[in-house]
């Protein structure tokens, strides 16, 4: 029986702050990620969420999946909303109007909400240095509206707006580097295939009480990427093991720590998904080169 104690299921918090009964697709890695994020953040959390899959699936009146105060505020500005919620409620606490309490002020958005339409408000909140956590769930396209490309869609992926052979021919925006360039206290990537690492990073983000902490969470999407729901975790894991989505942390925009290894060929990761099926072996070789280059660059930074 002792062996079982090392299983992830025994290590994670038992509390559920994002409950079942929501309307996510089968095999939605994002919903699973939210569940673990909310376990790590705990009940003393206020969430402002951007429009997107997670908002739609979790909040149809009169139902809610949220066991914490939760507010949806359009597509582009969960960071603006939560930043003022933070300042306002802290002002009320200071004046004794509401009880003193450590609250995690959390903004959540998808890759479109974060890297595209909400980039300005997010950068504004970063610059102002609010005590807040921002979690970006990256499923690499606008999934809620039916799989359109975002700036976070990788090179080579077909979407409804980069259809078939007209797959996306620009690189994925590196949101982590943009965050790190703001010199915020903590930036990290996470992946639901590595739940202990994910929860550790959220707890670390929670424990820092000044400045914005940013978590970039990889979320595989069976509906948008074209794979069987049962493979959601396998694909998420392959993204890390192939170095397409390495796990790492950046402190104060300078100190890089890599938390993942693996050297699986990116071919194995890409060939599991329909969105890359138009790519030739030559195209995939180019992606491999890009992944190698990025991995080298990351390692150089980690070595300092």
């Amino acid at each position, binding site marked *: 029986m002792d062996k079982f104690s090392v299983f992830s299921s025994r290590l994670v918090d038992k509390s559920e702050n994002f409950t079942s009964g929501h309307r996510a697709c089968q095999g939605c890695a994002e919903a699973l990620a939210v569940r673990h994020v909310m376990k790590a953040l705990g009940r003393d959390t206020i969430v402002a969420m951007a429009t997107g899959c997670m908002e739609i699936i979790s909040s*149809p009146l009169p139902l809610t999946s949220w066991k914490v105060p939760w507010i949806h505020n359009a597509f582009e500005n969960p960071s603006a909303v939560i*930043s*003022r*919620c933070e300042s306002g409620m802290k002002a009320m606490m200071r004046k004794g109007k509401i009880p003193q309490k450590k609250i995690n002020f959390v903004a959540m958005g998808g890759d479109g909400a974060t890297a595209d339409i909400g980039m300005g408000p997010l950068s504004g909140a970063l610059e102002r240095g609010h005590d807040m956590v921002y979690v970006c769930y990256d499923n690499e396209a606008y999934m809620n509206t039916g799989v359109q490309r975002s700036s976070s869609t990788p090179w080579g992926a077909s979407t409804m707006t980069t259809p078939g052979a007209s797959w996306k021919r620009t690189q994925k925006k590196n949101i982590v580097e943009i965050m790190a360039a703001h010199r915020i206290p903590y930036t990290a990537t996470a992946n639901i295939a590595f739940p202990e690492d994910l929860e550790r990073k959220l707890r670390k983000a929670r424990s820092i009480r000044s400045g914005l902490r940013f978590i970039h969470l990889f979320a595989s999407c069976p509906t948008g990427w074209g794979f069987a729901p049962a493979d959601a975790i396998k694909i998420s894991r392959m993204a890390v093991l192939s170095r397409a989505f390495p796990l790492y942390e950046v402190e104060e925009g300078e100190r890089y720590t890599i938390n993942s290894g693996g050297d699986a060929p990116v071919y194995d990761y890409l060939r599991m998904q329909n969105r890359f099926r138009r790519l030739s072996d030559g195209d995939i070789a180019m992606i491999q080169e890009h992944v190698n280059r990025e991995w080298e660059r990351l390692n150089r930074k980690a070595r300092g």
Partner: protein
Amino acid sequence: MKTILEGSQACAEAVRLARVQVVSAYPITPQTHIVEELAKFCSDGSLNGRFLCVESEHSAMAAVIGAAAGGVRTFTASSSQGLALMHEMLHWAAGGRLPIVMAEVNRALGPGWNLWADQTDSLAQRDTGWIQLYCADGQEVLDTTLQAYRLAEAVNLPVMVILDAFFLSHTWEPVDLPAQEEVDQFLPPYAPRFRMDTDHPQSLHGVAPIGVYMEMRRSMQLAMEAVPELLERIEEEFFARFGRRYGPVEPYLCDDADVILVTSGTAAGTARVVVDQLRAEGQKAGLLRIRMFRPFPVRSVHEVLKSALKVAVLDRNCSFGAGGIFASELRSALQGGNPVPVYSYIAGLGGRDITVETIRDCFALTRGTDRPAIESVWLGVKEELLK
């Protein structure tokens, strides 16, 4: 205490007196004096609140939405392009039933980049669910802002307090500044009906399926319908304490008037002078200033205009393809009641002066024309520039 204040300062003083806890804004001329003043109050401690400079008007409104959802009394201010950028969030504040108060300094929209007075910016937001109050002088800006918090917090709808660019925002006038204790008694601390609270978690602004959305919108409409009576009660109380009241509409010499001019904002001050002149000349002229545009004060305008023979509306705005906006609202409000003909005039767009002559022209044209033109009549247009 009587003091000399700029219109913008009158607004900022009211926000200070209302003990607003969170102000968030983005700079745009001619709103800047309001927020600069508030930033000063926050930094020197005369307002115990937080001032947040954000990166856009969209975020400014989003930020006060966040604060208001946290149970905090909030304020923002904007103008023109900034208000247009806020548009999405204006719907959000109203649909979220958050009692936010904002000052909106009427300024023309570009292109044809223009910093001066024009009401089309705020009137373009008339369907967002905001209560709209148009002010005529600095004292009214101060008083209206205080009343706005009472009103907003009573019906859970946001309120826009509207000032003409420069004519009001940058004009210095004597203003009676009430004492803090008096204001505290009129405007108690904000007691939110709902707020974000980790001990009593709620989900706000989530998906509203077909089965509930219409009821949510019906309740907004009902809240709007309750505003005229509520404003009257709030103004009674305000009058008892401060000795001033305005009403949803402000009639001047309307009881026996045969021709009544309807207008709003600072143009009403000039119109009053003209009415006095015309009265001295033996004409039965009257003036009706519309202060509350949303909800539109249907009953009040019926009452005031009931014995007029002709009504002239002077609009400093235009809905392209329809004409003067107050005029079309007034026409629809009068349906089924008084069949008085409504003459529509447009003047003063983009800050062009509405002078005594402009208003005399309105009266003369209305008196001298048997039936109103179908289209709005534009006054003071340089025809040679249109060739």
